[in-house]
């Protein structure tokens, strides 16, 4: 009786060891959905000329291969209609993240901050449904020849309701950073 019992116990023991050791690790597609790999700025000059595109690109997301980034080169004394586009290129086809941002416009806001002496003025940001700036489109006006920097920031409002307001600064404690990219910029 005792021996039988021992046999049964050992049987269970080895059987469970056996079934688990034969099990294969399943391979699933990772579906990380909050990644932004690419930010493209498209500059359409007012009054005609070539459309310009500058981008920040980190095709494998944070970490791994270092991102690449263009220098923005614009002509002096010109006005550009600028559109920003965000992509997740870890997915095929690439996912257009701008549409998500546009859908949740009352919880997002772009800021464009040229450094002093860059001779750039950014204005005319588009608004969300509550007439608060969103900034998917904007107007950039250049002055005389200069080199400088511009920081493009996308802020995300985490509250419910988001509480987004016209006067919110880029470092508002209501929102947190989804994107913060500093471009070198040249007016020449």
């Amino acid at each position, binding site marked *: 009786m*005792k021996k039988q*019992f*021992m046999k049964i*116990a*050992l049987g*269970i*023991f080895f059987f*469970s*060891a056996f079934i*688990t*050791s034969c*099990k294969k*690790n*399943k*391979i*699933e*597609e*990772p*579906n*990380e*959905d*909050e990644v*932004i*790999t690419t*930010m493209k700025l498209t500059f359409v000059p007012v009054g005609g000329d070539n459309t310009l595109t500058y981008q*920040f690109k*980190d095709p*494998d*997301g*944070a*970490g*791994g291969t*270092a*991102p690449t980034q263009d220098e923005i080169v614009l002509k002096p004394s010109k006005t550009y209609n600028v559109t920003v586009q965000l992509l997740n290129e*870890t997915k*095929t086809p690439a996912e257009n*993240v701008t549409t*998500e*941002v546009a*859908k*949740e416009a009352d*919880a*997002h806001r772009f800021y464009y901050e040229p450094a002093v002496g860059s001779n750039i003025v950014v204005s005319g940001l588009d608004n969300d449904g509550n007439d608060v700036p969103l900034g998917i489109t904007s107007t950039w006006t250049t002055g005389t020849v200069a080199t400088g920097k511009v920081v493009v920031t996308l802020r*995300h409002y*985490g*509250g*419910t*309701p*988001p*509480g987004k307001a016209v006067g919110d600064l880029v*470092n*508002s*404690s*209501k929102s*947190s*950073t*989804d*994107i*913060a*990219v500093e471009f070198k910029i040249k007016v020449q």
Partner: protein
Amino acid sequence: MAIVNNTITQPCNYILSGHVEDVDTKEKLVAASASIKETGKQIITNEKGDFVFTTLCAGEYTLIITHVSCDTVVKKIILTKNFHIDILMPHTRKVLGDVIVDAQKGIANTGYKKELSGRALEETKGLSLAEALSKINGVTMLQTGSTISKPVIHGLHSNRILTINNGVRQEGQQWGNEHAPEIDPFIADKLIVIKGVDELRYGSDAIGGVILVEPKPLRNKPGFAAEINSAYFTNNRQYVFSGVYEEQLKKQPAFRYRVQGTYKRGANIATPNYRLNNTGSEENNFSISAGWKKEKCNTELFYSHFATKVGIFNGSHIGNLTDLLNAIAAPKPNDVFLGQNTYQIQRPYQDVTHDLLKSKTVFYNGEHKFTVLLAGQFNHRKEFDIVRSSTNKNPQLDLSIYTITEDLSWEHPKKNNFIGIGGLSLMQQDNSYNGRYFIPNYFAYSFGGYYIEKWNKHQWELQAGLRYDNKNINTTRLKFNSDTINYDFNFSTFASSFNAIYKLTDNWRLNTNISLTSRAPYVNELLSDGIHHGTATYEKGDITLKPEHSINISAGINYQHPSKIFSIDVLLYSNNINNFIYQQPMPNNPVLTIAGAFPLMEYKQTNAVLSGFDISALIKPLPALDWVSKFSFLYARNKKLNDWLILMPANRLSNEVIYHLKDGEKIINTYLSAEMQNVMQQKNVPSDINGKQDYKAPPSAYTLINMNASATLQVYKTPVTISVGVRNLLNIVYRDYLNSMRYFTDEMGRNISARLKIQL
């Protein structure tokens, strides 16, 4: 009202005798009071712990046994003939809750053992496992807000601590700082922290110690019992209901079973000045156990389900280092994250389930005892972050871990003053993830074996043990373009421990221990690769890490005054850990991402030392008054960099006075207590010379006042215990160094609790 005295015609010459022992130490309890409520007669036990009532009539009596260091025991006795009863007295908080003087009792642990049970455990009903454990001197908590907490023993936590849930090594995602143990504290009858020889039964890697969550044994008396616990907390309107029903079948006494369940729900938490949105929590747990017990063999089946959903303060969401610095600079969170008083939980939140199925069979061959323990566990952790699209219903982090363990053990009977236990352990584990990468998919299997011998004679007690484990890990990380990155690891770890106890007299006891333990690096330390949003750092693992080796030396002294008016317990320890795995800032290599540059932290190895002492003392200035004082001190250094270790608990002192009221006719176990808890400022933090590790200085020292009162009433023969308590009585504003929310918010304000326990 319980007097049955229709026995006038019968002679009143029955004898009721009894013997009183401490349930744990088996010490005969001298000077315990035995009284019969109906007759009002009281007898004090003699030096053998015995008492005798004579000239009793037949009838139903209520026997009340009280002893200075024990919980009161009430027994109903129907007397129809001469009767003898053995009474085992449970410990109470009066014996320092945590100072256990174990005597000769089978394979019992006699080294470092600190226990939370009885009334001290009752006072934590409704709190989390880590909060309960932190009542033990030397144990603190690592927190994420007020709702996520994990235990820290002498400065060590997560993978350096083993949690043994009902005999099974808990396998969840315990590596993360914001991953709380997935255990319902209502399952436990005792929470025990052990170190030394006995930890070898559970693993070679318990560098920090082992936590045992021990349920009550199944009922061993025909009939049934039930207990209902409920609690309400005013701060976050949290309510808890927990019930347990157990039975031993009268017709088939070999069969016993128990069902147990807990429901807990809390709304948003309030600090003294503001309420934090999205800090609610919900928990749903149940367990079923059944046992079959025969003389030579008994078997037990246990299943438990744990499910929790915990909101995380949404004002703590940060995108990059600038956000973190802004948050630190702000005196309080923005108003959009404050003020909602609701039970609703929104993103970000965690949703965690843990299932455990266990079968344990014990059988005896002569005096030899064999145990076969088989267990399966499934842990599923989903983290829902703030996402851009409100239509996104997916978790952003999704980890599943399946574990099967098989343990065999053999205990030999006492021979020539030796007792011993040996065992084999096997484990197979499958971890997989979806969504954000944190740790890779892996399959791990391990095998190990241990052997422990204990010897005791006269005043000496010696124990020694060995353990070996081998762990194989095959990892697979999936890349988005369907590439995989695979790494395989194999680690062998060895542990041994020696413990010597010398009882100078009945009142003095010395205990020294030396333990060698080794812990293999966990996959997160080997293969982490990503942004840790809570600290705005980029964490990177290192595949070349080797196992940590610890040499822990400790010495303990216990003294108890013969009249029990004074007792003291001192523990000194020094834990030297070679190849200690920690995160080293790499200030010259920030990681540039689309959200800005993140400071890089790499897992590195150093030699570390964690030394310290715990002291607790009990003084009884009056028979009804206890004063319990506890102090714990820790010193934790990175020896290679000659610097402090980060995130170590601050030194702390607690003083508590407990006043016991006399037991009345219908009210017993009445007490009032007040505690003052002083947590000092952690001044020993790493300097910035080797790279900035933290952007905010540790918060200032704080003092909390907590109070409790409790009484047990007899309502229609049913003991009903009513307790009220208050934590942070003065509603002070403070932050704690070991709470990651200290960057953003104050700690919880005043919290008044009410508890009701009914034993049917």
